[in-house]
């Protein structure tokens, strides 16, 4: 297969902060250096792209020395944390902004889909907007005309095609936008997160369409997403970007694993800040840390395969002796609906006797949750019901659509979840 995209030494420099009167001085400074043929003094002090640390420089490399090649027919999944530089890379590839250094070479037409329905005019009808949006994406009028019926059909808006788009529901305009883009005849398609919108039915339809597009092996797709199951089911190759640099490139599963098990930010370590505003707190004890791990013991996981068990690990600090404590762990949806409740009454109905000190608590949860995002809720009570501590949404995690065993992947209407309340809570002094 021939190489269709060749990226060489791409870097992108950004300036932080506001543009105001003061920036003029530095502009003149840069310009004067360039005029005399010297290196831009402002570039030299640029720093690595690490959003959590407060740097000294106003300049940051959003991308630094990116090199890669994409072959014809490949579907490259680009993953990485927020702010790693994925979108900047796509913007450079789609010629929205130019790189600071380096070059990109490509064969064939590049169409980028960084947003669905770009340029939709609310006052124009669906019909007019299909033509307008198609033209913006680089289609000729005749081309759109030829595919018009298919587009309307795919979007499922036949009835509203002569109604102004401002009367559409947001889902309808998103579907219309995606439908136009889906019929683009470009050799290279750049797609950013657009699947994150729309309902489940539309998402699977969209993924199906993307698979169709690339199935003939002629067209190449670059796909950025935080949805690991979409990346896994769609892409043939993966690329992990970290702090503006390519961390890993290769097989898609290996890339995802590397991303999920990679080191996380302080925010993702599960440490509960001491100064967290607490709704209920008697001051007798506090939770210090909560993490999830899989049953094999790999810590700090935030994504789990469908139908896999996981372990909740908690660190608790007891500040004053408690004679009758009940530890409870709940799993709920991120919008607060509790699904599962386990507590320590099975171990001791009269309550745990906790002396001043630190404890390690763990519980294995064998519940099979449906794919989606969930959160952990923690409670500590006296047996008479008085709350010692109650924490909501301390740790978010996702259940993927794919399973460890390939024949057990989640399938709509065929797969079910279930809740098991048999977990035992183990508690040990540290």
């Amino acid at each position, binding site marked *: 297969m021939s*190489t269709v995209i*060749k990226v060489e030494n791409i870097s992108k420099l*950004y*300036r932080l902060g506001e*543009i105001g009167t003061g920036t*003029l001085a530095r502009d003149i400074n840069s310009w004067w250096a360039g005029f005399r043929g010297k290196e831009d003094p402002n570039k030299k002090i640029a720093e690595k792209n690490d959003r959590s640390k407060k740097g000294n420089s106003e300049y940051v490399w959003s991308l630094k020395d990116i090199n890669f090649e994409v072959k014809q027919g490949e579907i490259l999944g680009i993953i990485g944390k927020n702010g790693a530089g994925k979108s900047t890379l796509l*913007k*450079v*590839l*789609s*010629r*929205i*902004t*130019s*790189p*600071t*250094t*380096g*070059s*990109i*070479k*490509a*064969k*064939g*037409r*590049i169409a*980028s889909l*960084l*947003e669905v329905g*770009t*340029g939709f*005019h609310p*006052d*124009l009808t669906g019909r*007019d907007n299909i*033509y*307008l949006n198609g*033209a*913006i*994406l*680089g*289609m*000729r*009028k005749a081309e759109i005309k030829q595919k018009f019926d298919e587009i309307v059909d795919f979007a499922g808006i036949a009835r509203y095609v002569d109604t102004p788009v401002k009367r559409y529901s947001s889902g309808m305009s998103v579907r219309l936008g995606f439908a136009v883009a889906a019929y683009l005849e470009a050799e290279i398609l750049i797609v950013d997160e657009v699947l994150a919108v729309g309902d489940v039915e539309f998402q699977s339809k969209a993924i199906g369409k993307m698979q169709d597009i690339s199935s003939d092996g002629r067209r190449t797709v670059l796909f950025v997403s935080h949805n690991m199951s979409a990346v896994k089911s769609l892409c043939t190759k993966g690329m992990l970007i970290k702090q503006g640099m390519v961390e890993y490139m290769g097989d898609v599963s290996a890339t995802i694993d590397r991303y999920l098990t990679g080191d996380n930010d302080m925010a993702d370590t599960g440490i509960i800040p001491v100064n967290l505003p607490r709704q209920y707190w008697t001051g007798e004890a506090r939770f210090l840390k909560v993490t999830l791990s899989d049953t094999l013991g790999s810590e700090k996981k935030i994504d789990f395969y469908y139908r896999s068990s996981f372990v909740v690990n908690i660190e608790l600090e007891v500040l004053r002796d408690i004679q009758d404590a009940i530890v409870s762990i709940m799993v709920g949806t991120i919008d607060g609906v509790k699904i599962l409740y386990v507590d320590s009454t099975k171990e001791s109905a009269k309550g745990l006797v906790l002396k001043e000190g630190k404890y390690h608590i763990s519980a294995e949860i064998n519940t099979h949750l449906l794919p989606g995002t969930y959160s952990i809720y923690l409670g500590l009570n006296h047996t008479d019901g008085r709350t010692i501590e109650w924490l909501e949404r301390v740790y978010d995690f996702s259940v993927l659509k794919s399973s460890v065993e390939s024949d057990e992947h989640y399938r709509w209407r065929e797969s079910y979840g279930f809740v098991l309340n048999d977990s035992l809570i183990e508690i040990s002094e540290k």
Partner: protein
Amino acid sequence: MSEQIEKWDLEIHPKNSLLKLNLSEMWHHRDLVLMFVKRDFSTVYKQTILGPLWFFIQPILTTLMFSVVFGSIAKLPTDGIPQVLFYLSGITIWNYFSDCLISTSDTFIKNSNIFGKVYFPRLVVPISVVISNLMKLGVQMSLFLVVYFYYLITSDKIHPNSILFLFPLLIVVMGIMGLGSGLIISALTTKYRDLRFLITFGVQLLMYATPVIYPLSSITSQKRWIMELNPMTAVIETFKYGFLGKGTFSVMSLVISAVVSILLLLIGVFIFNKVEKKFMDIV
């Protein structure tokens, strides 16, 4: 072993070559120009009761206001031409220029949401703006012609002549001038937006420095050279001379206007191209 030289359709580098217009790419997007024109033209007066009538109301009211303020109160001369016709001719033509200039001057800021998501030659937008303003001019010219023929029949003060056939040329010169200066301003306002505040009232001030509401002949000859520095002066005067028979016509100043407008366009395209590639980071 011979290294195979690969042929690439697209190469992206940090900087554009200075005057590379990429005309084939522009040509590929000609449908997009039409779509933008259609969008701009058909959505201006959407969801209004009077609809396209608004295209006429604005010049009519302005003409009436000018007739009252400048004609009746200030008693500015109109070279013997009926006031309504005199003001309407100036306004119709001037509006085209000022619309072209004002609406291309915020190309980057106004379209940053589209430009931030999709690539197409950015020049498509200002060009489509000039074309949709041309259509608006066409509509407003029909109003002018109705009034014009009314006075042509009822009054003996109007003497059209063959200079009238220069009209298309005048339109082209104005369009190019508006586009060129609009491009320059749009490129300059991406980073420092100071000029944006100047532009709307700047164009208004410029109107008073152009013989729109008074004839050039009413300016004393010592001061007239200042007026003639303004490239719009020759355009407006030629228009009035051709249609109304009064005004000043000089081939020399018209040629100078044309040259200035082409220069403005070249400079505009040059700066626009330079800014186009990096504006997303600074707008």
